[in-house]
């Protein structure tokens, strides 16, 4: 059994600590008395995954076994999480492939002919055929692509079905094929507590008309945090929508959870506690750090993007979504939850090279903001890691780089930030324009572009943090880029703390969230 997560008090014995900073990392000496929130050790993965998947399908929660739900002549749609999960992409075979193969074995045995597979990419960019093949495996890809293995298209009016409105007046519009199926089987990877559950179908197969009800500034500001579903307005909206969807089409969900084996063996020092680094780890750190620093940015990018995580699967649960998800969340908490006493004046985060929206792509400044003020800031349960009015210090170079194919609307959104960085203003004035822009829609549907509205959602993702924090500083951040985003840049931690002293004084309590691997701070 691995060790639980814990909070380190930095003392004179503490060696410099590892800090991610985009496509790089460094060692940083934190001031004495700083606290460092470490995730639990990586849990062992399930040894016989095939048997675990089969057991989950045969003994589901709140549902009949899957075999009993399958029958000849039925319309079966298998939906799976897209390439935004997990991070980094897991070493093949992907767990989705292994689940889908067993579902298809059962469907074949039951004589089901009408089967389609849909990637639940929502307003994300479409997955390329190679990415689809990597996710579902060669055998499934060959059998179903392209006709019956495809991406969800949230802008195809003929393939969307409006199922009604929730009691809160929220439109529920999802993929027609799924809505008109006799059974939807959803294959999920729950990497963080925000994933899975009601979110899967209600978001993954939805259209803009539906998503705008929860992907907005008001909801995000009342999702505290969005990694704590019971206290997340966003998840409450998902639940209402999922209830409505459940009244139209039966959903059998299979949720999987992963351990914290985030990096391959060559990078194992990234996942070990620094005082436990042996000479191999130190040599590895030095070799990788120097090579990484000396590499061209193109080569560096390629190497990081080709990194595959040797994840182990810690849990497979299947059945009715509402019955399954509590088990899934418990498994996520076992792997990621660390108790923290009290909030800090300053929170420090080292932002890695990857987020859900730059897989095989570029982490542009808006995605950096979303990763830092959205995902990392919200890695808490109870209270934020940093107090109201405190300061967040992020490590990321934040180069002003964009992927022209994947993120065209982000480039235009970045220009808007010169006018205002206020999420409400941006939402009110520009969201609809970007969301309905025919060119962005065309690129989303026919190319590999994120939807026109997607950069707005990323900005809203940080709305709660922006409202909560007194200052945001990026160590090593490009000065003009950080200024454009409304933040400040510092060349070192000492400089950042100097800048922060105007907000939190000269002797602040500092907490550093040591991630990745994933850690969810349970702040008491």
């Amino acid at each position, binding site marked *: 059994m691995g*060790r*639980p997560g*814990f*909070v*380190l*008090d*930095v*003392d*004179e*014995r*503490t*060696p*410099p600590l590892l800090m991610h900073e985009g496509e790089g990392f*460094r*060692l940083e*000496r934190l001031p004495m008395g700083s606290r460092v929130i470490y995730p639990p050790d990586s849990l062992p993965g399930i040894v016989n995954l095939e048997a675990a998947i089969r057991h989950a399908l045969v003994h589901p929660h709140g549902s009949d076994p899957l075999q009993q739900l399958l029958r000849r002549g039925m319309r079966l749609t298998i939906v799976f999480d897209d390439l935004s999960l997990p991070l980094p992409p897991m070493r093949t075979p992907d767990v989705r492939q292994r689940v889908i193969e067993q579902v298809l074995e059962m469907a074949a045995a039951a004589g089901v002919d009408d089967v389609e597979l849909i990637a639940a990419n929502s307003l994300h960019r479409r997955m390329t055929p190679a990415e689809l093949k990597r996710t579902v495996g060669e055998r499934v890809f060959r059998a179903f692509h392209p006709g019956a293995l495809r991406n969800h298209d949230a802008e195809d009016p003929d393939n969307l079905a409006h199922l009604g409105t929730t009691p809160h007046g929220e439109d529920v519009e999802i993929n027609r094929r799924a809505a008109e199926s006799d059974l939807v089987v959803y294959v999920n990877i729950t990497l963080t507590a925000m994933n899975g559950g009601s979110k899967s179908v209600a978001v993954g197969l939805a259209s803009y008309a539906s998503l705008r009800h929860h992907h907005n500034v008001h909801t995000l500001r009342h999702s505290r945090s969005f990694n704590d579903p019971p206290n997340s307005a966003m998840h409450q909206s998902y639940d209402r929508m999922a209830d409505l969807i459940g009244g139209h089409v039966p959903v059998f969900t299979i949720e999987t959870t992963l351990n914290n084996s985030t990096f391959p063996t060559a990078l194992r020092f990234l996942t070990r*506690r*620094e*005082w*436990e*680094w*042996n*000479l191999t780890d*130190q040599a590895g*750190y*030095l070799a990788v*750090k*120097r090579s990484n*620093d*000396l590499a061209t940015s193109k080569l560096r990018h390629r190497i990081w993007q080709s990194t595959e995580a040797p994840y182990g699967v810690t849990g497979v649960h299947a059945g009715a979504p509402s019955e399954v998800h509590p088990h899934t969340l418990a498994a996520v908490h076992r792997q990621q939850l660390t108790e923290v006493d009290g909030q800090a004046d300053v929170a420090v985060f080292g932002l890695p090279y990857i987020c859900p929206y730059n897989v095989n792509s570029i982490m542009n400044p808006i995605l950096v903001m979303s990763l830092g003020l959205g995902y990392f800031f919200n890695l808490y349960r109870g209270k934020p890691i940093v107090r109201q009015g405190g300061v967040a210090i992020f490590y990321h170079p934040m180069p002003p780089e964009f992927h022209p194919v994947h993120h065209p609307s982000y480039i235009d959104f970045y220009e808007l930030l010169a006018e205002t960085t206020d999420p409400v203003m941006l939402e009110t004035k520009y969201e609809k324009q970007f969301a309905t822009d025919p060119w962005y829609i065309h690129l989303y549907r026919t190319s590999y572009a994120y939807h026109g509205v997607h950069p707005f959602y990323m900005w809203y993702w940080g709305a709660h943090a922006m409202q909560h924090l007194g200052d945001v500083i990026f160590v090593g951040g490009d000065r003009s880029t950080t200024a454009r985003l409304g933040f400040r840049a510092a060349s070192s931690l000492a400089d950042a703390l100097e800048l922060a002293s105007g907000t939190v004084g000269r002797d602040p309590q500092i907490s550093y969230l040591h991630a990745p691997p994933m850690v969810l701070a349970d702040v008491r």
Partner: protein
Amino acid sequence: MSSLREELRLLRHGRDWRGRARVPRSARRWALPDDGDGFPTEWARTAAAGVLRSALQRGVLKPVTWSQTRPVVHGREYLESVRGPAIFIANHSSHLDTPLILGALPPRITENLAVGAAADYFYDSRALAAVTTLLFNTFPVDRRAPRRSRSLAADLVDEGWSLLLYPEGGRSVEGLLTGFKLGAAQLCAKKRVPAVPIALRGTFAAMPRGRRWPLPGRPRVTVRIGRPLCIRPDEGVPDFRTRLVRAVATLWAEDDLGWYGALRAAADDSLALPSGVSGVLPTTVAGQPAEGRDMAPWRRIWEASRPPANDS
């Protein structure tokens, strides 16, 4: 981009010459067990290794130790009654302690003596483990989860080896006497072998933590060997441990109070005895018992680093 020198400086910061960092205090509870499990030590207990070790100890180790310090050894006569395995227990505040004890004990005992060594320190690198094992006939002791190493210690006693153990669990940070762990007393009780208390004074002053060689000027050190103690039939292990602590504290106090004065202080129960990890000075120079934990940190180190009296 930072320079290689800067990277190395950061990487080396807080690490010793073997690249090991000390476990931060708040992380101790979750420290990984490091029991030197993978390093075999049986070879060091063969006859050939014993011959080589005796030559090294008598030809190199003792002459070097005695040339760099001025050891005064008391109580060798108590060892005449020791026949067969015994557990030698001593206070520990310096890497000088083991060479001094090995030099102070008669060859008939050292030739049959194995030394418990911290697995997380001496068995972290194979080169260091090999040298230590050969020179001192050490075996790994896991200081945090001692079950496995305790069984190795028991096996060694079964094989007829005497053991030298430091029941404080490591070198004292401030040079004071700290509480004894139960392991040594338990071993004596389980194997029905005597414990021989030893007190070392002056080694903290001569070569404290962080130094790799004694201070210049041949600092004076004393090695006081006490009477062997056996657990009584009606005595519990914790009580026996207390008796061992008291025996070492009494020997420690001899430098300040003299032999009889220390005996009187022990009989009057006026020696300060340690409990747990906080250290105490069994006596002060003036003969007044003083709890180290009530003293300012600088005073604790000041007193502990005071050289033993010349006339003792």
